């Protein structure tokens, strides 16, 4: 016994438990990292899968019997007491009770998209055939049964024939829808843009006191031209709208309420309960593609996130263009030209520390200095005609990328400097001994050798910029940008416009959206995309760094 005791004490004395505790810390960290990634992946990827629509007979809290139908989203286990407190009558039950969250859709009928049901209240559960899910441009999904397909108010197909009648009609409506969208977005957008330019031109001439009859005529003629084109398009649009509104569907919800859905409002229909796994997979990838390539619908809670992806990418590219030359030049100056001494040491510490300064501070600086000071002055100097509406004196993509360029500058400087410092002195001296000037050595020897380090720095900078949100909230992102910063109107790249951003999209849809429950899966999917992008960028940086190290170890 005492031997055993001694062994125990010895075991404790040896410190083995502490070693295990520290191992535990690593395990906990690893579980947290991978758990987080798995959580995001599972929730983000599951969103696109068309699950079966279940119909239930359900007894409400007050005892009324209803029929509900929807997709089962989540299940939680709730203590019985809590439900009893909430007024449920659950005689003869024990232990925890399963509570399911159903997506019931039909917001136009019920007012909400989601409801929860508790397992004991469910008296029957079926997966009915012929359930149709209609994704709509307004009011979210509709779950129900298709009764009739109508053309201009007249019934053309009922019940079993509807499926065949629906497909060509839906395709036709969608074609029209695309056409309308094209006209509205691109052609009319271009006209509006031209009209605005004319207005500014006139205002500028007026400000310079150069606005005379000749100018007036010219501008009026151009304006008339644009307006004529507009009229033509408008007429065409009216026509298209009329055509598009021709067909409609008569659908019935589970409790028998009839709803008329105009086909123009329909994004897509599908019959989840009749789909095989192959169909579902196809549907899945179609939804993924929609998510990546489409514009958001219904206050960002449905549809895709293409503008956010586009805005993020464009902003990051602009930032990279800005940060690379400055960061590299600063690093070369510090490492190759500046006299190494106390001053460079201080500068190096300062640069290093800037990487640790909170990003929101950069946002504040960007707002004050770039937006209000620089932008305000640019407006006063170059765009007096647009006043008092600001052009550059308001948050926009240029200021965002500039702010993030400053934010990521330390990352690029530090990485490039590290690359420069790893190049053996002998190589430099060899080049100089052969008669090359310092500039030539730099350009032909040092920079090419340091370029992987430079790339690493740039990738890390891009990864940081892509995930940064706080400063962008001050200097240029919006929840819904009316127009992209890059379009078909001259000068194509509009640096003064606001833009959408993946990170901000997560924040905005997750926290500012009126319908958080409906938007949540979309936020997970967006988060997954952002995480993937950033992990891939970081892995690339790590890979390049490791290769670089291996390379110079041999020199």
């Amino acid at each position, binding site marked *: 016994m005492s031997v055993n005791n001694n062994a125990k004490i010895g075991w404790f004395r040896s410190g083995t438990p502490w070693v295990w505790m520290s191992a535990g810390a690593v395990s*906990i*960290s690893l579980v947290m990292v991978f758990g987080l990634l798995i959580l995001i992946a599972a929730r983000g990827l599951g969103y696109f899968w068309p699950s079966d629509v279940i119909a239930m007979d359900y007894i409400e809290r007050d005892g009324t019997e209803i029929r509900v139908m929807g997709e089962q989203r989540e299940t939680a286990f709730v203590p019985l007491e809590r439900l009893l407190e909430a007024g449920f009558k659950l005689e003869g039950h024990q232990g925890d009770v399963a509570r399911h969250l159903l997506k019931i859709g039909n917001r136009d009928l019920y007012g909400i998209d989601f409801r929860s049901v508790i397992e004991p209240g469910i008296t029957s559960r079926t997966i009915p055939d012929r359930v149709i899910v209609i994704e709509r441009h307004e009011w979210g999904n509709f779950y129900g049964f298709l009764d009739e397909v109508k053309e201009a108010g007249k019934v053309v197909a009922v019940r079993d024939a509807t499926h065949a009648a629906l497909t060509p009609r839906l395709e036709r409506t969608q074609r029209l829808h695309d056409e309308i969208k094209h006209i509205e977005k691109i052609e009319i957008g271009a006209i509006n843009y031209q009209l605005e330019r004319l207005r500014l031109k006139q205002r500028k001439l007026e400000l310079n006191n150069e606005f005379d009859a000749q100018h007036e005529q010219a501008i009026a003629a151009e304006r008339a031209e644009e307006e004529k084109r507009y009229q033509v398009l408008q007429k065409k649009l009216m026509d298209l709208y009329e055509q598009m509104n021709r067909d409609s569907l008569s659908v019935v919800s589970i409790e028998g309420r009839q709803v008329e859905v105009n086909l123009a409002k329909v994004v897509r229909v599908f019959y989840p309960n009749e789909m095989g796994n192959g169909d579902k997979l196809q549907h899945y990838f179609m939804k993924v593609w929609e998510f990546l390539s489409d514009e958001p619908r219904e206050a960002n809670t449905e549809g895709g996130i293409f503008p956010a992806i586009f805005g993020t990418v464009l902003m990051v590219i602009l930032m990279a263009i800005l940060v690379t030359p400055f960061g590299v030049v600063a690093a070369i*100056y510090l490492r190759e030209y500046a006299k190494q001494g106390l001053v460079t040491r201080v500068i190096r510490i300062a640069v290093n520390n800037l990487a640790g300064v909170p990003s929101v501070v950069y946002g504040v600086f960007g707002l004050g200095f770039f937006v209000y000071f620089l932008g305000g002055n640019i407006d006063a100097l170059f765009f007096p005609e647009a006043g008092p509406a600001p052009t550059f004196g308001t948050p926009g993509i240029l200021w965002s990328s500039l702010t993030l360029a400053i934010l990521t500058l330390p990352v690029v400087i530090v990485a490039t400097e590290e690359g420069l410092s790893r190049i053996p002195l002998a190589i430099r001296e060899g080049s100089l001994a052969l008669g090359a000037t310092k500039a030539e050595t730099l350009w032909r020897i040092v920079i090419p050798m340091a370029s992987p380090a430079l790339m690493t720095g740039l990738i890390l900078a891009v*990864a940081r910029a892509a995930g940064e949100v706080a400063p962008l909230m001050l200097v240029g992102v919006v929840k819904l940008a009316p127009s992209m910063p890059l379009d078909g109107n001259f000068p194509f790249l509009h640096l003064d416009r606001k833009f959408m951003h993946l990170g901000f999209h997560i924040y905005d849809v997750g926290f500012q959206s009126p319908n958080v429950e409906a938007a949540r899966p979309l936020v997970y999917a967006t988060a997954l995309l952002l995480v993937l992008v950033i*992990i891939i960028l970081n892995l690339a940086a790590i890979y390049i760094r490791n290769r670089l190290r291996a390379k110079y170890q041999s020199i």
Partner: protein
Amino acid sequence: MNSSGDNQTAGLFTSKASANHRRRRMVKDTLTRYAVAFGGISVIIAIILIFFYLLFVVLPLFQSADVEKRASYSAPGTAQDETLYLAMEEQAEIGLRFTTSGKAIFFELANGEVILVESLPIPEGVSITSFAKGQMDQGIIALGLSNGQALVLRHIYRVTYPNDKRQITPQIKYPLGDAPIEIISDEVALTQIAFQSNEEQTTFAVATEDGRLMLSAFIAEESMFDDTPEFEQFTTELELSDSPILKLLMDQEHQNLYVVEQNNTLTYFDISDAESPEKFYQLNISDDGRNVSSVEFLTGTISLIMGYEDGHLAQWFPVRDATDQRVMMRIRGFDHQQASGNPITSIASEFDRKGFLVADSQGRVGIYHSTAERNLAVTELSANPIKHLAIAPRANWMLAEEENGQLQLWHIHNDHPEISWKSLWGKVWYESYPEPDYIWQSSSASNDHEPKLSLVPLSFGTLKAAFYAMLLAAPLAILGAIFTAYFMAPKMRNVVKPSIEIMEALPTVILGFLAGLWLAPLIETHLPGAFSLLLLMPIGILLCAWGWCQLPRSVRHVIPEGWEAMLLIPLVIFVGWGSMAMSPALELMLFDGNMRYWMSEEMGVGFDQRNSIIVGLAMGFAVIPTIFSIAEDAIYGVPRHLSQGSLALGATPWQTMIFVVLLTASPGIFSALMIGMGRAVGETMIVLMATGNTAVMDFSIFEGMRTLSANISVEMPEAEVDSTHYRVLFLAALVLFMFTFFFNTIAEIVRQRLRVKYSTL
């Protein structure tokens, strides 16, 4: 390349082409040198610019006021008439002077030229005996007459833009009709008057020549037939001692009447029911035996500013005491104009800030702000006493009348009087608060709101969030670093280190979103589980370690040393899942099925869904990789011969770790903690999404907080450029900047020293 090579072989340094070529190369070399130096230095300057720009925006906050004399002229209109009241219009183009002879004289402020003289409809043989201001922003005043009547009038200014030029037309209007209203029926002079007027009610308080104090309320009654309301008059006499009255003051809610008597007593009447006013209390307001010489409301009509005969000033306002009674309290005093025989002659309150101007008999004017307890300037306007003082609605001009009838117009440059060291970092006693407190409340709907700009609750929230984050991150990261650097098998380390470092790059918006939408509800429903996890995890690990040691050697050798962390992963997952799964049962057993309810009932602890636990977990998660990575580098860099020597002398690996390795690496670990702290302090998105963002000062782990960074990102887009609020937010950013810069610099210097130390060991 080729040609130059040929040249060189042909005649090294001799041919002209070669010389040219060399010169070009030299020029290029020099140009590059200058270009790089210029570029490098300008980037470094740009970095420094951040700090100076922030400072540049913040500095005006602490500037005192500038005043500048712009004009001086003798009182416009008939100079021999006494001035009753001076006022200015919003654009400060037009001034207004009421005289005792019943004239309203509008004049150009710039030069004193009379624009319009309006004779007030005062009956023949009646004179003006008293005067009162109503709501300042409406320009409404009342005149008490010698026949027991009063006249209410407004001076208003219509702004039109004929030919794109601003034109301001002054006007006098009589909201209650242009005939004086009878306050008391006997024809006795009203020596003092106070009044307030709004659409439903107009209330007068008057002191009469024969020593009575009367309250008279005109309450609108809905008329059946037409829109013009009819008024019903209630008149009541108020009881008071015989001392002559210095001033009557009525607040704009028609609820409180303050009577200041010349014997330094202040009597407070509750007049919220005009038919039966109540006398509440009486108190002495002589501040250390001084005599009151002048009294005025601050904007919002809650605070009273008292001017005393020796130039001392004090702010008083009603405070609810322990028995919920409203008691007038002296809040703070100002003695910047104090001198014997130097009474305060006139006080003018700003229209929409809690600032005021004070004139004294030595001809000096002082500019003050009550909340900030700040004197912004004292300027000597003239050698003569100043009788009347007016301030423009935008508080950027003042008009003073000397005793000899001379008017002086001064421009005031006083943008940020609200800010002082004390109002930012000290306890401030705000109006309507029972005691001094730290409060952040930057904006509100009403105009006469007192801005509460204490950075203390925000800084407190920042440190609280950082503290809870460090509480989770520091032990996990440092223990993890110890194991990874010292005990872990190299193969595993090659995987573990990059994966924890990738964690650092994870956008914090994702962590914040998960914390707010996934973790917060989970913890809320599984609170006992979360706490049991804290207890069970170490116990589980120890049990597992003990169990593993008891296993036969053959089994233990399947997994080599250094892979313990791998072995523990299933355990961690199991314990985590188990704690959450048994949470409802635990809750039922220990807390009657609802821990939150139990806490608030039994312990009196409030519970926020988005609380410090959530922030600690999410931000701890964000900080772990930072600390881990630097600490691991420091431990890994400890020269091997040190630990090998220790092991050779018989120390166990853990003893070597603690007494040799950790001790050597401790500066590195310190700097890791500093940098981690810096990151936790500045983190924005996580706290924005995972807390309720309420600026409470509460240590409770179950309550949220509002941090400096989250506050900036919430309020910055709404702050008006160059306003005080905007600059205070810049100040918050500057505080964050300096804080993190300071800690990071310390950490960096420590780290550099350590590197030198390692190289010499």
